[in-house]
């Protein structure tokens, strides 16, 4: 086993655990109750999910129909399925299937 790899993995892994667990264990949300920090935390969720969607879709939005068209049909499939069924699982699967099918049709 590569020692450098292990050291980097352990340092990054411990930091990841600390970032994810310590704020919960310290119940920083309770300390923040009622104040500006509470409003900040309440907006963090939607902000994070919106950011992650934009970051994930952005590389596909290029003037190349082979990438752009499947991204658009996949996105529309998610929107349509969610509107009809209100299910995260079904919408996700529909988006992936339509995206893959579009790539297949264009290919």
């Amino acid at each position, binding site marked *: 086993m590569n020692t450098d790899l*292990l*050291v980097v993995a352990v340092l990054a892994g411990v930091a990841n655990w600390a*970032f994810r667990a310590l704020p919960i264990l310290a119940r920083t949300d309770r300390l923040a109750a009622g104040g500006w920090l509470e409003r900040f*935390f309440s907006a963090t969720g939607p902000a994070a999910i919106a950011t992650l969607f*934009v970051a994930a879709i952005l590389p596909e939005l290029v003037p190349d129909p082979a990438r752009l068209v499947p991204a658009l049909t996949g996105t529309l499939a998610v929107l349509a399925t969610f509107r009809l069924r209100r299910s995260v699982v079904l919408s996700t699967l529909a988006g992936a299937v339509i995206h893959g099918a579009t790539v297949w049709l264009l290919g």
Partner: protein
Amino acid sequence: MSRTRPPFLDGLIASLPIVLGYFPIAFSFGVAATRSGFTAPEAAALSLIIFAGASQFLALALLTSGAPVLVSAFTLIAMNLRHVLYGPALMREAGREAGTRHAWAWAFGLTDEVFGQALGALARGQRFSEPYMFGLGLGAYASWVSGTLAGAVAGGGALDGWPALGAGLGFMLPALFLALLLSILSRRQLPVIAVAGAVTVVATLAISATSGILLGMLAGALAGLVRR
């Protein structure tokens, strides 16, 4: 939440879209790791210990480029700083009485997608439960680690003959994020979402993808302060 199923099982079932989304990405990580000269156990160790997708790909690049160990580690740590906000945001939605006794264990699985899925469930009226969080995180973790191992063992070119399948699987995560966004969407949060999205685009194009994510998230959360 179903009354007939234990919450752990509910969490495991709720992890399905994440499982499907993670496996191909972890698979491609396993392939990339072996292409970079690492062994299958080394690739699996990165997934087992770090469990954070983008930073693991970066770890490969840093380790193979000969960057100093501490510089590499610090870069990865900085990249995952956004996770500091997830716990408090989730617990705020969970309510003051929500238990956190076992958070030291389940919180390790609080990745972007697990956070999004858990928050979506709470927004749909589900009660917070630690066993549910264990189930959700465990499904995601198992998929991530087994996908890495499968990719490392299969080696390069495994999906080359199936471009449509590879593309569809690759779209699983953007689709999941969009579905999660729709599930928590409310008129009140629209300005937050708009600001986060716009800043992500600008910062990604002007600086880098990592900065885009961090700045987009921060700007959106700050927009939540301005509105009242």
